[in-house]
């Protein structure tokens, strides 16, 4: 296992930073197999699955962190544990010096498939989140927050539309607005642009960069795209393949902000980082494919 802080070159204290907003310490997740008496009788047993093993990561406030790795490496598992939707088998997740015991509005989540309520308008989807988190807030202020966030993601004029009347890119804007409207400390994004076509994707990445400059919230984003990671993040966490996925390496992205795609693509560091990530991803993906061939 590689020590994350050592990679950063800061403190030698193992896996723990005083200034960290979120600390992931020795986290392991095992999905238990079916092996109870009933399963044995019906002959539907399966083995335990070790998804991720001994992950250590410290995330400082106001940083944009991207997690990248081959598919099935447990990236979403890790993010779901930060969200409080599932729990580690061993290890701790600590947010602002408090262990994470469940989901909460201090973490806003953006889903790959948007997860908008189809029966609610754009406005209602965002208001539902605000109302749920701040039930005592005056209606006037709720309305103001909703309006503000619709403007932030550039959806003014589409307030009264239902999700099925919007394009994929617009739907994800609503998803981002909904996550930000509750004013979370950390924004969690699970492959937010994975379901979009390449052009919309690039456009939305630029939008997220613009919004991030305004809000400067801590973000943890999962992605498969190297360019996306380089454009948006301060640090890139590269994970190995599963099962028993680990953190392979954490890269610091040194480009200044605000960033522009055309500008950073000209920098020599951009190409060095990109080459390194490609090497890592190709190696891991090839290993995954080979393992699959052997399994069959």
């Amino acid at each position: 296992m590689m020590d994350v802080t050592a990679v950063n070159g800061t403190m030698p204290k193992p896996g723990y930073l005083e200034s960290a907003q979120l600390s992931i310490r020795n986290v392991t997740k095992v999905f238990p197999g079916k092996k109870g008496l009933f399963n044995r009788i019906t002959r539907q047993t399966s083995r335990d699955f070790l998804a991720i093993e001994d992950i250590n990561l410290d995330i400082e406030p106001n940083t944009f962190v991207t997690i990248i790795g081959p598919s099935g490496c447990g990236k979403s598992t890790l993010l779901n544990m930060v969200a409080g939707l599932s729990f580690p088998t061993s290890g701790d997740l600590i947010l602002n010096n408090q262990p994470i015991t469940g989901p909460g509005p201090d973490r806003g989540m953006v889903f790959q498939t948007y997860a908008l309520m189809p029966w609610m308008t754009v406005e209602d989807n965002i208001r539902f989140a605000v109302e749920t988190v701040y039930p005592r807030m005056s209606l006037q202020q709720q309305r103001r927050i909703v309006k503000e966030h619709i403007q932030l993601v550039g959806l003014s004029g589409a307030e009264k539309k239902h999700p099925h009347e919007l394009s994929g890119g617009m739907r994800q804007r609503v998803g981002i607005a909904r996550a930000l409207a509750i004013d979370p400390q950390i924004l969690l994004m699970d492959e937010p642009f994975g379901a979009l076509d390449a052009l919309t994707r690039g456009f939305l990445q630029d939008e997220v960069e613009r919004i991030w400059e305004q809000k400067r919230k801590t973000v943890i984003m999962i992605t498969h795209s190297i360019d996306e990671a380089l454009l948006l993040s301060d640090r890139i966490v590269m994970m190995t393949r599963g099962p028993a996925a680990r953190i392979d390496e954490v890269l610091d992205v040194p480009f200044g902000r605000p960033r522009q795609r055309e500008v950073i693509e000209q920098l020599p560091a951009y190409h060095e980082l990109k080459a390194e990530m490609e090497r890592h991803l190709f190696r891991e993906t090839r290993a995954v494919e080979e393992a699959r061939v052997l399994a069959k």
Partner: protein
Amino acid sequence: MTSRSRSGKRRRGESVNSLLANETLRAIALFVASLALFLIFWEVGANMKWFAKGMPTASKTLEELWWWVTHPFFDNGPNDLGIGWNLLISLRRVAIGYTAASLIAVPLGVLIGISPVAYKAFNPYVQLLKPISPLAWLPLGLYIFRDSEQTGVFIILISSMWPTLVNTAFGVANVSPEYLDVTKTLGASRFRTIFKVIIPAALPNIVSGLRISMGIAWLVIVAAEMLLGTGLGYFIWNEWNNLYIPNILVAIFIIGIVGLLLDSIFASFERFVSFGRKS
């Protein structure tokens, strides 16, 4: 360039017989033609005595239909009642039984669907009771209530409950886990999750269950009323005793039309709650 000229040619070709090019218009034309053919065959066949003895002609039946439709509300005692009254009697029974069934089935379905354990535990009851013919309940209803009116309502209730119950439980149990993840990350209460997310998310299923139930209620009432003394079902039974076939055909037609109307009300309701989802 080639594609433009080709589409231009096609457009010109369409305008020549544009009336028959439209799919809806073609369907209407086929419908009218087949109906005319059927009526002619019936008229000729009845006149030539091709069918059973005493089979009325199409024109005679349509004449009766016109008379019943233009004189819907008269009352010369229980065996000579306008078809409008009979229709209202049947609709009233269906409305009471169906409303009661829905008021039981929807909340019960939600409760069963929310808990996977309850879903598995109560499924055998539902699966057992669902396929029972409505008429099998008739003697039991008459014995318990000793009243034809209440028995009619009871049979509607007991037979139209199941599709709504099954669909509601299914819809609630299969709400997209993503919606639930959203409510969890927001920290929504159980109550708020159920009423603001689970029920609206299951609404397309609930409404299609209600639609199937309504169809069943309308099927059942006609059969049950043959033994109950009033309503459209009894009208048919009475005309059978009179051996007057045209009126039986008139009643069959009216039952079909009313069923169609009820169904299309629910179909539009289904569209109203779908919001781009297919149900």
